[in-house]
């Protein structure tokens, strides 16, 4: 099983997929409960982000077999999206400026 490569492809026990499937269900339920129970503030945002990252990680690592790919491919695919965070920081700063000028010159009205 561990030697499977290229020709025989990604071979992993079905049980592993079942476990991940179950975990994704549980994590989605938790995300939903955050909203259902009306949790607010920093706890809400951190819980939502935590469950989101755990779910995304499970999908990429196990379902998409990234955990077993060549390191060069892993770096080539996973590193560039991290740079989106830089873009997020830029745009967050830009939006703060936009909303500030809107409030200053348009008075907050529509």
């Amino acid at each position: 099983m561990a030697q499977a490569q290229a020709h025989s492809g990604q071979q992993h026990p079905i049980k592993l997929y079942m476990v991940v499937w179950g975990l994704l269900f549980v994590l989605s339920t938790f995300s939903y409960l955050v909203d259902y129970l009306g949790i607010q503030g920093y706890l809400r945002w951190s819980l939502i982000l935590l469950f989101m990252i755990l779910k995304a990680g499970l999908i990429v690592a196990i379902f998409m077999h990234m955990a077993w790919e060549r390191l060069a491919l892993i770096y080539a695919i996973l590193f560039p999206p991290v740079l989106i965070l830089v873009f997020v920081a830029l745009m967050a700063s830009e939006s703060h400026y936009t909303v500030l000028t809107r409030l200053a010159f348009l008075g907050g009205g529509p």
Partner: protein
Amino acid sequence: MTESIERPTSNPHLRPVGLRGVAADLSSDQRAFKNVSWGKAMMWIFLLSDTFIFGCFLLAYMTARMSTTIAWPNPSEVFALTIGGEEIPLILIAIMTFVLISSSGTMAMAVNFGYRHDRRKTAALMLATAVLGATFVGMQAFEWTKLIREGVRPWENPWGAAQFGSSFFMITGFHGTHVSIGVLFLLIMARKVWRGDFDQERRGFFTSRKGHYEIVEIMGLYWHFVDLVWVFIFAFFYLW
């Protein structure tokens, strides 16, 4: 897995692992990502480009939401459904999430049975994936219909900031398109698997190349990616 393979000695097929492997792969004079087929590598690179597209959409949404002076509608209430006289927040979205996750589960198992050359189980599981995907799109059509009836447009909505409408239709619409295309490809591939194309090495009608079961995994990469994008949309658009 290649963990057991150490640096190349007399055997040219053995490749180094770890960071040495990264350097060896990327500096190789032939093709990068040794042992990764071109089909799989190309799907990953396509998905990377798709990541940037969805990333830009979500960024545009973030920028619009952060810079508006008008209150953003509360998605928890907007997407609530009244079931049995009781208003349940986000229930349709939660069900859609579970449907899509289940489709990812069946797809992962289809890939597994594909590599075992069990064409009946593979085709059946791919068909189940397609049905779940179509169910998702159907529920999204229901959601769109409901919101359009309530007056949501790309330029306005009854609950506040107009940008909510454009963000909603852009993001969920683009994702729904991905799911629909995925369902179509799943059906085409399921037919090929069912017919035994990859056992008989039948040539494809378009490329006239012989296919093999790896295409199920490549198809799976696309499908899991669609589920992956939904994880982010669920968190940022519906829960945030």
